[in-house]
């Protein structure tokens, strides 16, 4: 498991660097600021929901508080940034409201399989009191994830997206 987790951690970090370089080279503005805002948004909600999830098996350097890892936070940041870039590129003419829902769909499609992968890797789990609420026994086909595990995805994604869009907006329009 050790090497597998290390490869996973490094691939997340590499993806962040590639995304950052891509955006910088393509002329996107305030790339670092955008990454920092997204990171803060994700970490804020990770801290709030920390007792619900178990992030075990990561290397010690990846942890920052309890079982919160900055590497996994970067993974979330990557998913959000990819969604924002993809939707803005192909559906840039839509209103912010419509794009907001497209971001959510995009992120869900990335995050749920990633969650299943992390569970199979043994680095992700659910707190006992949360497992008690997963009583339906229904499992998502192919991914083998409990149905209840995806309730929080749209809620937390909506919060983080709003946080990112809103803080960016305030900073962009400050005078």
């Amino acid at each position, binding site marked *: 498991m050790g090497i597998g987790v290390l490869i996973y951690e490094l691939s997340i970090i590499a993806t962040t660097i590639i995304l950052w370089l891509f955006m910088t080279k*393509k*002329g*996107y*503005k305030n790339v670092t600021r*955008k990454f920092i805002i997204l990171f803060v948004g994700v970490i*804020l909600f990770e*801290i*709030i*929901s*920390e*007792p*619900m999830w178990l992030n075990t098996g990561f290397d010690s350097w990846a942890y920052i508080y309890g079982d919160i890892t900055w590497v996994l936070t970067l993974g979330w940041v990557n998913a959000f940034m990819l969604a924002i*870039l*993809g*939707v*803005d*590129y*192909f*559906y*840039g*003419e839509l*209103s*912010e*409201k419509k794009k*907001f829902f*497209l971001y*959510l*769909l*995009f*992120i*869900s*499609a*990335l995050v*749920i399989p990633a969650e299943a992968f992390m569970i199979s890797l043994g680095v992700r789990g659910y707190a006992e*009191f*949360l497992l*008690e*609420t*997963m*009583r*339906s026994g229904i499992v*998502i086909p192919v991914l083998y994830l409990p*149905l*209840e595990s*995806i*309730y929080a*995805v*749209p809620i937390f994604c909506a*919060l983080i997206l*709003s*946080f990112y*869009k*809103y803080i*960016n*907006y*305030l900073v*962009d*329009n*400050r*005078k």
Partner: protein
Amino acid sequence: MSLEVRYPSGQFRSELPSNVKSNRTDSSSGKFFKALVKIILTIGAIIMIIPIIVIVFCLGVLLIFSLGVTIPILKVMGTGTIFLTGFTIMNNKGISKKYTPLLVFLLIFSALFLAGQYDVQSLNCPLHTNYNQMMPTLQFFVSIIGFLGFFYNGFILIKKSRK
């Protein structure tokens, strides 16, 4: 969230740089990526249907069968919302629509914060969990800091914009 409105003091800026045109699918790679994005969005839509149905169902169950238990929560949340809205309007007669998301943030944080004060685990609904366990001291303080941060951010900016 009314992100669609055109704000008087600025708008959401596109993530795309000005030299990149949106929706360029003339090349084969452009077509491929557009198709890929469509597939990802379709998968996301299928995944998203599940929580929406469950949330609507659970809200129905909650309202029909547990009205007595939920009344105190709704009451406190309602009072909080009224207080927040009243306070905002009172202090900012010409409140800009750009602060609507701030209010939404505050309401969501209030909901999480207030949920921590109630043990709703006894309700037989998969949406419920023991928020008292979920909110130990640190998370509690983080919520308050986040709450105050958004509050401060919004109100100071509103005051500045009125000058």
